[in-house]
């Protein structure tokens, strides 16, 4: 039995709907339309996703409802009627019927489709009820859209804020591991991913050398992915063929962004399964790819910062060490040479780095003789300087035991260095002792450049009498002796002088040095020493040199 139409009652029902709070406005709209039409049974559906429906007095079978849902999914908000015959299925077994379809629309959009089991008794009055109902649904739709737009706007702000925060973290910390956590978590949050993995190669910087692996949820990949990383983002939706190492990753859909720093692909950010509110999984979109790439870039910047910081710290530490070593070495190399009997001495050292591997010294002996030497330690920098200080200490200590037997003395220095130098760094040494009574120099040249003796206007070379010390366990050094009479000059030097190179990659060479010292016979040794350094500088003209330069000049007087 059908009730009579109640137009005023229908309007009152519609007016009672609270668009903001009512959980099922469609049911109230249907009730109002039933009241306004005089119909007893009906159905109202909202064709826009997610599908909503309200039924009154009907109990259609599941097949009929499934057919209705399929139709609405296809037609969406453009549907204005139901498919032919569906009314019969929905109203069965209450037949015969005289159903009417009432589309509630606003601006060409169907807000609801209403099916009533009979035509309205008062068509004009019902039309006003339908229009009222449409306006209510339009307000609700607009409210939903505003709410959704508001949420999306806030989501964009959140997205930007997350990127900004990660950027700030990068600037404020060098703890890459903590940053990696932030980046992974932020990526998962913003992309609505279910799980995620970050894998990055940290060799050459960042935390410890090696690979940093972070997972949230089931691991999507292991470090082996680093051997086959793409240099661009990738999306694998709906069974697209994945790269080999991701074939068995526990995810339906995957998104990958490489972490590229300084042109090198260092790692990867992987996201799995973007969830939706209905409990399903959506495809990763190009926008998601963009977001993940931005986080990948942030990770790359953080890695690069950490590397640069580590290098800066290391450089600062090295500089401090070098400064310390340089200050120690300054106390080792003589600043002024002693005045000794029968000799005028001059010399100097010009290191190519703040500390170097050259050494020279003069030792007045208790018996009136004078020992002097030039040595060159293999290598440069702090390790070489340490060995120089060892040679210095060794010579000082062993000289107290006497140098009557010159090869024996050098052998003792050699044995000491063998025990000290675990890295097998060797030392070339020209060690000489001048006896003013005999006007003679006895010397051992252990692998060093030949000394240059200028006597009677002639230059004679004093070649090596054995190998460098500190490297070969069994070696013998021969002693030699040459006269050093008043006016004669012995010039000792390191290979930094003869091997100094100019812009044309030519060496200063022995010939230039010999000519120079031969021509300086009439000059004081101090002047000759300065002239040697000056000539080398003139020759090299600012070209960076890689070896220390040392000169020691001894002239008998």
């Amino acid at each position, binding site marked *: 039995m059908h009730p009579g139409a109640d137009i005023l009652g229908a309007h009152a029902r519609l007016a009672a709907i609270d668009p903001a709070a009512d959980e099922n406005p469609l049911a109230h709209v249907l009730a109002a339309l039933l009241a306004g039409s005089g119909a007893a049974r009906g159905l109202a559906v909202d064709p826009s996703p997610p599908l909503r429906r309200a039924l009154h007095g009907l109990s259609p079978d599941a097949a009929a409802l499934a057919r209705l849902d399929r139709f609405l999914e296809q037609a969406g908000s453009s549907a204005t009627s139901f498919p032919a015959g569906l009314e019969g299925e929905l109203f069965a077994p209450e037949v015969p019927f005289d159903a009417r379809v009432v589309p509630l629309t606003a601006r060409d959009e169907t807000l609801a489709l209403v099916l009533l089991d009979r035509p309205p008794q008062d068509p004009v009055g019902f039309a006003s009820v339908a229009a009222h109902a449409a306006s209510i649904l339009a307000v609700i739709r607009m409210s939903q859209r505003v709410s959704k737009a508001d*949420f999306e706007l806030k989501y964009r702000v959140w997205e930007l*804020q997350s990127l900004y925060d990660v950027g700030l973290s990068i600037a404020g910390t060098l703890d890459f591991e903590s940053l990696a956590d932030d980046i992974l*978590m932020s990526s998962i949050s913003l992309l*609505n991913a279910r799980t995620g993995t970050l894998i990055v190669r940290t060799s050459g910087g960042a935390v410890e050398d090696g690979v940093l692996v972070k997972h949230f949820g089931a691991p999507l990949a292991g470090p082996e992915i680093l051997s086959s990383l793409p240099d661009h983002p990738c999306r694998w939706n709906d069974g697209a063929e994945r790269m080999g190492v991701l074939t068995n990753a526990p995810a339906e859909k995957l998104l990958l962004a490489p972490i590229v720093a300084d042109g090198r692909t260092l790692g990867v950010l992987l996201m799995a399964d973007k*969830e939706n*509110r209905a409990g399903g999984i959506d495809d990763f979109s190009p926008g998601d790819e963009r977001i993940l790439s931005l986080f990948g870039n942030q990770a790359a910047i953080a890695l690069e910062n950490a590397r640069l910081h580590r290098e800066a710290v290391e450089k600062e530490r090295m500089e401090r060490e070098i400064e310390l070593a340089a200050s120690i070495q300054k106390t080792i190399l003589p600043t002024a040479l002693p005045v000794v009997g029968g000799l005028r001495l001059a010399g100097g050292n010009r290191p190519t780095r703040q500390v170097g591997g050259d050494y020279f010294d003069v030792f007045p002996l208790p018996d009136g003789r004078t020992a002097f030497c030039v040595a060159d330690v293999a290598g440069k920098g702090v390790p070489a300087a340490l060995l120089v200080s060892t040679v210095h200490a060794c010579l000082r200590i062993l000289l107290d035991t006497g140098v009557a037997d010159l090869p024996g003395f050098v052998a003792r220095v050699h044995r000491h260095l063998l025990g000290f130098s675990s890295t097998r760094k060797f030392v070339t040494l020209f060690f000489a002792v001048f006896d003013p009574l005999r006007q003679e120099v006895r010397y051992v040249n252990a692998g060093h450049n030949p000394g240059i003796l200028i006597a009677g206007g002639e230059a004679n070379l004093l070649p090596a009498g054995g190998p460098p010390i500190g490297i070969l366990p069994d070696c013998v050094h021969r002693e030699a002796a040459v006269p050093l009479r008043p006016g004669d000059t012995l010039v000792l030097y390191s290979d930094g002088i003869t091997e100094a190179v100019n812009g044309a990659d030519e060496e200063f060479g022995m010939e230039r040095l010999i000519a120079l010292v031969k021509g300086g016979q009439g000059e004081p040794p101090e002047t000759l020493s300065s002239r040697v350094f000056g000539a080398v500088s003139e020759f090299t003209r600012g070209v960076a040199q890689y070896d220390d330069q040392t000169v020691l000049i001894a002239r008998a007087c």
Partner: protein
Amino acid sequence: MSEILKVTVERPDAAVAVLRTDGYINNAGGEEIARQAYALMGGGVNRLLLDLEKTKIVNSIGISILIEILEKLLDSGGRLAFCRLTPTIEKTFQIMGLAQYARIFPAPDPAVAWLRGETD
């Protein structure tokens, strides 16, 4: 922390419930919180504290579910508070509007006091 959310409920008194979460507040996690919250509301408890000490990650779907819970609580004259949020989650709640109608506290005790109406 697991990506699967666990919720434990504590009742400091008849009017207030504390829901402690451990894990990811995503769709599944949010639904679990909603299930527990609606069960409590069905039993007349509409002053809820969500203690997120063991939650380090939340996504937009989880937030939308929390907003739904908040709306229902407000409709019923209830209150919702959060405590022990990570700085990131707190900032996210501020941005997404949750902090506009729910209160955020650093620790559970002042939150429970506010839910009881003992403090402003």
